[in-house]
């Protein structure tokens, strides 16, 4: 088992570094169109930095290739609070920006949980926690069975979402079978009611995953972590952000 993570038990950097946001200026206004919130900075959204790095630097998918079998798949398992997801999809041209103005309205395609049948670029409809990783395992297996070796499958989860036992079914099986095209990203804002003694990464590495734990606001670190997977095993990136208020 290989891990480039910090020692087991360590779930966040010891001292949050002072950093300059790598987020583009246009994301702030897009988020405000969704939330109407003038007070909170984009950093209030725990997933925003990871989502931006994924769509800006990692994922081989664009509005034009959104139905291409060879595209990378991004599955948002943590369907709660999808404002950051919608803002990134709009910034990358998957959906028109004006859709952001009517979040969860009666005629809106954008709800508080995303629906793949309503939103271009959304691979799975989620909201009930604990479904994305199983669907991601199936997606990776389906691609492999069809000889599609290039696409990777990325699944974004939350640390509290890991409470759902269904995730542990998927973690154990993906590890045991060496599903090397699968990457899980766990946004760790320390919101699991009973915590994860021993750390989140160790939950995965014990099943044979490789793991990297990073500062969830550091774009270069996130990018590096997402690109250090190995072909013979699934990979997890634990992205630590400030605790949920």
């Amino acid at each position, binding site marked *: 088992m290989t891990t480039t993570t910090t020692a087991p038990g360590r779930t966040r950097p010891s001292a949050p570094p002072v950093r300059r946001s790598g987020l583009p200026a246009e994301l702030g206004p897009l988020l405000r169109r969704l939330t109407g919130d003038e007070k909170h900075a984009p950093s209030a959204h725990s997933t925003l930095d990871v989502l931006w790095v994924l769509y800006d630097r990692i994922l081989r998918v664009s509005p034009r290739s959104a139905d291409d079998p060879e595209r990378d798949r991004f599955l948002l398992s943590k369907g709660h609070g999808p404002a950051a997801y919608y803002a990134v999809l709009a910034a990358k041209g998957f959906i028109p920006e004006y859709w952001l103005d009517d979040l969860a309205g009666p005629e809106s395609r954008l709800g508080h949980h995303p629906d793949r049948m309503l939103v271009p670029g959304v691979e799975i409809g989620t909201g009930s926690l604990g479904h994305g990783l199983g669907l991601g395992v*199936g997606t990776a297996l389906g691609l492999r*069975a069809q000889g599609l070796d290039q696409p990777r499958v990325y699944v974004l989860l939350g640390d509290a979402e890991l409470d759902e036992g269904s995730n542990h079914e998927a973690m154990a099986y993906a590890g045991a079978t060496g599903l090397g095209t699968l990457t899980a990203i766990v946004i760790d804002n320390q919101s699991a009611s009973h915590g994860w003694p021993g750390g989140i990464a160790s939950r995965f590495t014990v099943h044979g995953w490789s793991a990297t734990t990073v500062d969830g606001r550091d774009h270069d670190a996130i990018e590096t972590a997402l690109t250090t997977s190995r072909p013979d095993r699934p990979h997890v990136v634990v992205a630590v952000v400030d605790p949920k208020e």
Partner: protein
Amino acid sequence: MRDSFIDTATALLDDDPRTAVVLADISASSFAPAARQHPDRVLNVGIREQLMVGVAGGLALTGLRPIVHSYATFAVDRAYEQLKLDLDHQGVGAVVVSVGASYDGASMGRTHMSPGDVALLDTLTDWTVHVPGHPAEVPGLLRAAARHDDRVYLRLSTEVNEVPLPGAGRLAVLRRGSVGAALVVAVGPMLRPVLEAVAGLDVTVAYTHTPRPFDVAGLRELVGPATSAGTAPAVVLVEPYLAGTSSALLGTALGGVPHRSLSLGVGRTDLRRYGEPADHARWHGLDPAGLRRSISAFLG
């Protein structure tokens, strides 16, 4: 039926590169030869039924046609939310093939029974339900299901009718009573005890192995209009799962036609008893003698 399913699914894996089988240990040894031939399309996830259905949803999202298989209580009851969200809500389908649903596994007790499986699927969207009454009905149903992408439930049983009726996707008349005689509809393996139960009674007996979508047009035709004398037609529905599962559907189908109906099936009570399937059939009044008592009392 289980052997017929395994043989047909194995052949489908050879014939159609879209076919994939997802297992949670149940029947894994029977699929071992197929798994050696098609390691990427025969997937045993271990005893993880939530993952079994989630994986099926993921496979379907990539364009494959997953066949999911386990005991009904694990594939449907336990993984109900995965059926709802990982298939229905994603807009994809699978073929779910169960064994042991009602009381085939009587000796294993309540934990291995699922008389409510079809009722649970009735809460979901657009599931076709096949309840074959004979092993020879299974290959055609499975092959047809493998050709499209809709949601299909194939409910296999160890109870078997005398002869296969593969064309009975719509109501097939086995015995015709006199004009105005009561209609008795038997679903799947209930045909055999029903035919024995109604020996000598003036009733029409019809059979189907596909209760969803129910053959509404055929039912209306067989029931016919109320007679001029004002006698309401009588309909008896005998199903091998929870009693009354189809009664609302029957009421809707016959909306506007005055009728009397009786819905027979498995009772709701946890009997907390083991024994053989025949014992449970008797306790639920689904053996020939019990059916005759209920039907005779209803017809008066």
